[in-house]
C-alpha cells in the first residue's frame, strides 16, 4: 500500500534533486526580485527627473514656460518690443513681492494692488506730460519705462510704498531722476 507520507517524501526528494544549485539557490525569491527591480526602476526614474531638471535645457524650458504666463497678465504690449529683453526683467518682479510681504502686515490688503498702481499712476503722469500723449506711440513708450523700472523695484518700490502711498505725486520725479 502506498502511503501519502512516503509518496510526498519521494516527490520532495525528487524536487530537491532537481533544484538549482550554487548561486541560483541563493538568489532572492520572485517576490524579492520583483521588489528589487521595482526599487531600481524607481531610483532610475528619480535620477532621470533630477537630471532633466538640472540640465540647462530643462531650466530654459521652465523659464520660457513661466515668462509667457507672466507677460499674459501684465506685460501685454511688451512682446512686440523685445521679447528676450522682457524675459529677464520678468524674473525680478517675482522676487519683489517677497520682500514686500514683510512690509505688508501693517497694511494688509493694499500690498497686492500697490505694485501695479505705482506703475499705473506714473503712466498717467506721462500722459499728463502728454503733449506726447497725443502721439499714438504712447503705449509703445510705456513698456520701456516698465522695463527700466523693473530692476529698481527691489530698492525703489519699498520706499514709495512706505511713505508715498497717500501721495501719488512723488513717484514721477523718482522716475525722472534715473
Amino acid at each position, binding site marked *: 500500500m502506498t502511503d501519502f507520507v512516503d509518496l510526498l*517524501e519521494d516527490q520532495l526528494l525528487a524536487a530537491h534533486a532537481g533544484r538549482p544549485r550554487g548561486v541560483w*539557490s541563493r538568489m532572492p525569491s520572485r517576490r524579492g526580485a520583483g521588489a528589487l527591480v521595482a526599487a531600481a526602476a524607481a531610483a532610475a526614474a528619480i535620477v532621470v527627473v533630477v537630471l532633466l531638471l538640472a540640465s540647462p535645457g530643462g531650466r530654459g524650458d521652465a523659464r520660457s514656460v513661466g515668462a509667457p504666463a507672466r507677460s499674459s497678465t501684465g506685460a501685454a504690449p511688451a512682446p512686440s518690443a523685445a521679447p528676450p529683453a522682457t524675459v529677464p526683467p520678468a524674473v525680478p518682479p517675482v522676487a519683489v513681492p517677497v520682500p514686500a510681504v514683510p512690509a505688508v502686515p501693517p497694511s494688509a490688503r493694499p500690498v497686492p494692488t500697490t505694485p501695479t498702481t505705482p506703475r499705473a499712476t506714473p503712466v498717467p503722469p506721462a500722459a499728463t506730460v502728454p503733449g506726447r500723449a497725443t502721439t499714438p506711440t504712447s503705449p509703445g513708450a510705456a513698456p520701456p519705462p516698465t522695463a527700466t523700472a523693473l530692476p529698481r523695484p527691489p530698492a525703489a518700490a519699498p520706499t514709495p510704498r512706505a511713505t508715498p502711498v497717500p501721495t501719488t505725486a512723488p513717484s514721477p520725479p523718482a522716475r525722472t531722476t534715473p
Partner: protein
Amino acid sequence: MEHDGEIRDEAALLGAAADDPAAFARFYRHHVHGVIAFFHRRTGDAEAAADLTAETFAAALEGCHRYAPDRGAPAAWLYGIAHRQLAALQRHGHVERRARRRMGMVRIELTDAMLDRVEAIADAERVDVDVALDALPAGQRHAVRARVLDECSYEEIAAAQRISPLAARQRVSRGLAALRAHLRNAP
C-alpha cells in the same frame, strides 16, 4: 536547556537541508505528522489536510536556503508557512499549488487508503496530545488549552482562573514543557 539544544540541532539540520537531501528528509519526517494533524484539526478534511501538507513542505523546500536561526525555531518557521497556506485556503477557497508547481511536483491523487492513513495520523497525534494533556495538573491543563487551542490572552486566562497574569504565564509555560517532555518520551 535541553530544549534549546534540540532547537539548535534542528536549525542546523534545516540549514543543511538546502544542499543535503538526507537532512531535508529527516526534517520532513520529524514534522510531517504534526503538520498533517495541524491541518486536519483546522479543516476537518483529510484531503485538504494532505493537500495543504504537500504545499507546505514544497514551500519549505523552496525556501529552506533562506532560513536563518535568528528568524525563530525551525518548527515555528515551518508552522508559519502552514498558517499562510491555511490563510490562503480561507481566502481563495482552494489550496494553493504554486510552490509545488515551481518545484515541479504534481498533485498526489489521494486514494481512500491514503485518506484513511491521513485520518489515522491526525487521530494519533490528537490522542497523543490529549493523553499528555490529561496527565497535566488541572490548572496547567486548562491554561494550556485556553492559551493554545482557544488562543486566549494571559489576562483572560488569569481572570478565568482567578490568578495573576504572571502566574497564568507560568502555568502555560510549565504545562507546555511537560507536554513536550511527554511527547518526546512517547513511543
